[in-house]
């Protein structure tokens, strides 16, 4: 059987593709083996990840300790659930009440405060409801009584969602019985919620400053309410209790907790900025 040049070319391409395939498959596995043991899984929230903090913090942690922190970013509810299941070594979220419950149930030995950031109310720059100012309770009351505006809630059991619900309650508005006409729940993360708000006319939303600063699809949205003390969003860190899940990497997890509240870690947090603005304010107990 004669082999034409075309056949030879074809065989060449086939061999090259197989080789390439093996390289791709092999390269990945090699990388994995190297990083095998010195890593921990940290369950945190999407808003924290999207703020870009981890891109800044984790390399510093790795440099200081040689430990790789692998962050799985989900909603607060899911992050705590991961801790309960033992699928994470550390839980790092911002819902103090839920965290304390987690610790009380024995899933963590201790909860340590780490830092806070703040929420802001964003809405159309024209502000049809007249919410602008530094009093969130007053702003929410105005939103509830202006029928032409809408409010986009994350509705996903996240720390942000929990904070939002507390703020409505503090403003004296019972969402269960007197839900404002324009109140919408998307069951989604902070970014998608802001996307919905920016594409809906006269829509307001509550967001953490970190996500807002990185959010590029603003449309007509602008910050309308900020600085109110009740808008502060406290973060806590917990190492999962080995008594509940013996396999967790307790030593490595503890080093993460220790580092994040240490002066070095706190400094790393404070030095993270977007557009010259600091996002997170370290407040670990001295």
């Amino acid at each position: 059987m004669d082999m034409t040049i075309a056949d030879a070319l074809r065989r060449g391409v086939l061999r090259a593709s197989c080789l390439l395939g093996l390289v791709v498959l092999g390269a990945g596995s090699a990388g994995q083996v190297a990083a095998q043991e010195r890593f921990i899984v940290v369950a945190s929230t999407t808003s924290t990840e999207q703020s870009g903090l981890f891109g800044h913090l984790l390399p510093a942690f790795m440099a200081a300790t040689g430990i790789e922190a692998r962050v799985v970013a989900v909603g607060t509810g899911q992050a705590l659930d991961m801790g309960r299941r033992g699928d994470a070594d550390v839980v790092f979220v911002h819902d103090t009440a839920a965290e304390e419950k987690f610790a009380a149930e024995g899933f963590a030995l201790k909860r340590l405060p780490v830092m806070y950031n703040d929420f802001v109310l964003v809405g159309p720059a024209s502000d049809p409801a007249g919410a602008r100012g530094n009093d969130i309770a007053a702003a929410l009351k105005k939103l509830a009584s202006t029928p032409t505006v809408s409010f986009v809630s994350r509705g996903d059991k996240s720390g942000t969602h929990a904070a939002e619900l507390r703020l409505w309650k503090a403003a004296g508005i019972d969402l269960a019985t007197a839900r404002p006409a324009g109140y919408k729940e998307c069951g989604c993360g902070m970014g998608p919620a802001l996307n919905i708000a920016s594409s809906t006319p006269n829509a307001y939303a509550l967001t953490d400053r970190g996500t807002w600063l990185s959010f590029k699809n603003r449309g007509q949205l602008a910050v309308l309410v900020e600085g109110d003390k009740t808008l502060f969003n406290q973060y806590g860190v917990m190492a999962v209790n080995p008594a509940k899940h013996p396999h967790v990497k307790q030593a490595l997890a503890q080093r993460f907790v220790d580092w994040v509240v240490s002066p070095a870690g706190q400094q790393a947090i404070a030095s993270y900025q977007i557009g010259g603005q600091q996002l997170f304010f370290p407040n670990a107990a001295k």
Partner: protein
Amino acid sequence: MTDIADSLRLAFDLLLRGDTELLGIVALSLRVSLSACLIGAIVGLLAGAALAATRFPGHGVLVWAVNTLLALPSVVVGLLVYLLLSRSGPLGSWGILFTPTAMVVAQSILVVPLIAALTRRLVLDGLREGGDQLRSMGAGDMTAALLMLLHERLGGVTILLTAFGRAVAEVGAVMVVGGNIAGVTRVMTTAIALETTKGDLPLALALGLVLLGVVGVINALIGLIQPRRGGVVQQAFA
């Protein structure tokens, strides 16, 4: 429309720059989905051939199950595999949750019914035409089915390409079992999802175009290694 134009430019830019993070994400996507398709091919092709050629008690139920699983949403597969691999789950001791291995497992489960169902149809149609001749030549049930797979190999390649398309384009399963960990389990689709939720739509779209481009290159390579012929069977693939 300018968004799309921006994204095209951004996509080329990313590729030309050889952005290492992007290359890592692309390599992982390929690695996970190709591995899943390899496993899916072995299990699915054999299962599909067996379902076409043999009869046994419960055969009808199995066919119904395979056809129903075709519509399995990827996020449901992700959830089921997560519950299996979770430390609190039955296979927790394997410790593979949030690793590429878990992603391969999930995607394999996703593509096996697809490959099996399509292969069964392919082999059945083939056996309708040539089953008698093969049996006359002394082939047993399974042998006839495998010979039919050889006979219809171009159709088989299309099936595997379909499966690869489904695997590399899905986001629900790999997000849940992989966790979208930067540098470890972030693949193209989860990266796109992340950029979308961050509101960076041009980048998300650019990544989407890169994904399409990668799949396009693979298809071109496959097209290259098929010898040129004019027959009907070959035209079915072209």
